[in-house]
């Protein structure tokens, strides 16, 4: 392994690093919004929309991101929906992540104690007020560790964007290998780059989980 080669490749990887972060950011924000919508539909038992969101969740969770991306990027144009690779990547990540976020959020809402709901009813809160002041604030807090775990999962999934030639980290490493045969160096930098993003997040996750287990809401 050559140190010089590593140094020389840093600028290229730095660009890919930011791109990975940027794509992850948009994808995760979109996934959280989609997840909130899906879990609200389920919580409020909204007719029809709730069934649609259940079907979406199953399809999204039981198919691989890679084939979701292929479908969005290669098959959609054939029915008249064209988008750039980047847009396809972000859309794919949102489609995949939305269902994982929905499960995390709904899990939190379900975790709110029954007695909390009953004491809300006992002081005359309506169903909407109960959600607004009792179930959502507590449930969303409970779902934070699961959401954080999904954040890590989704960032890792961006490595699959390489199949539609988005120049994120993995794609850049493969490029470097293909162009210059700097196999060891490129893979080394690649692993380090993911470690820089994911180790701090994984430490935060461990901390969140520990806090959740101790009961952030010792009532």
């Amino acid at each position, binding site marked *: 392994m050559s140190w010089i080669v590593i140094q020389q490749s840093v600028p290229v990887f730095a660009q890919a690093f930011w791109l990975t972060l940027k794509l992850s950011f948009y994808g995760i924000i979109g996934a959280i919004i989609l997840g909130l919508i899906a879990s609200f539909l389920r919580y409020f038992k909204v007719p029809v929309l709730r069934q649609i969101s259940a079907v979406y969740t*199953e399809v999204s969770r039981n198919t691989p991101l*890679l*084939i979701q991306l*292929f479908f969005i990027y290669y098959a959609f144009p054939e029915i008249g929906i064209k988008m750039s690779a980047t847009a396809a990547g972000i859309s794919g990540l949102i489609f995949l992540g939305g269902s994982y976020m929905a499960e995390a959020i709904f899990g939190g809402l379900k975790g709110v104690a029954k007695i909390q709901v009953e004491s809300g009813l006992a002081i005359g809160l309506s169903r909407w007020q109960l959600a607004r002041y009792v179930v959502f604030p507590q449930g969303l807090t409970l779902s934070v560790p699961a959401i954080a775990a999904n954040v890590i999962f989704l960032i890792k999934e961006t490595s699959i964007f390489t199949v539609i030639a988005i120049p994120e980290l993995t794609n850049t490493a493969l490029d470097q290998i293909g162009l210059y045969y700097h196999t060891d160096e490129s893979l080394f930098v690649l*692993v380090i780059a993911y470690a820089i993003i994911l*180790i701090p997040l994984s430490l935060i996750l461990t901390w969140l989980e520990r806090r959740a287990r101790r009961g952030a809401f010792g009532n």
Partner: protein
Amino acid sequence: MHSGISILFAGQNFSRLLGGLWISAKISIVSLVIGIALGILLGALRTVKNPILRVILRLYLEFFRIVPTVVLLFLFYYILPKNFNVNLNAQAVAMLVFALWVGAEMSDIVRGALISVPQHQCEAGIAIGLNGPQLFRYVLLPQAIGLMIPATINLMTRVIKTTSLLLLISVMDVINIGQQIIEANRQTHPDGAFWVYGLIFILYFLLCYPLSAWARHLERQQDNNA
């Protein structure tokens, strides 16, 4: 110009696609069997109170958790032959990587289930004179296994979904064959991608959905009994 869906049934196309799916299934099964066995062993070892062992196993887990599976595949695919002179074909590399990855994830599932068995159960076992392995075999494992099953089934669906990455190290899996079919029929079926990727999408769903529905069913049962 044909109607698009006919691309799936022209010539040997359909059986070729199923053949590709079988390769993915084979790799999943082999790596799950090896990985789950490895994970049970490592998970049990992770409950042993030896600090060095713990650190090593934790590092192993974290490495396989943090590095994306795509990257793991490339690491083994490029580095084994080049730096260790081990020449495996792409399918064997995939089985190795998936087995190690499953082992890591499984060790965490096993450990989590084992430490959730109440302490007094162990003490009761010790009190009747059981030794370490006996305690594991007769007290801990039977009580923990129910907790492990849903997570293990979910891990299976993750492995199946991850086989979609085999394409990247040139395994002739269902997606790779699908791409070839689309290319070969570009002239006659310009909309081939829609039908071929659509079929593969459905095939993956048909493999994964029953498993995740089963896992959810078991989880519900456990919640109700709790």
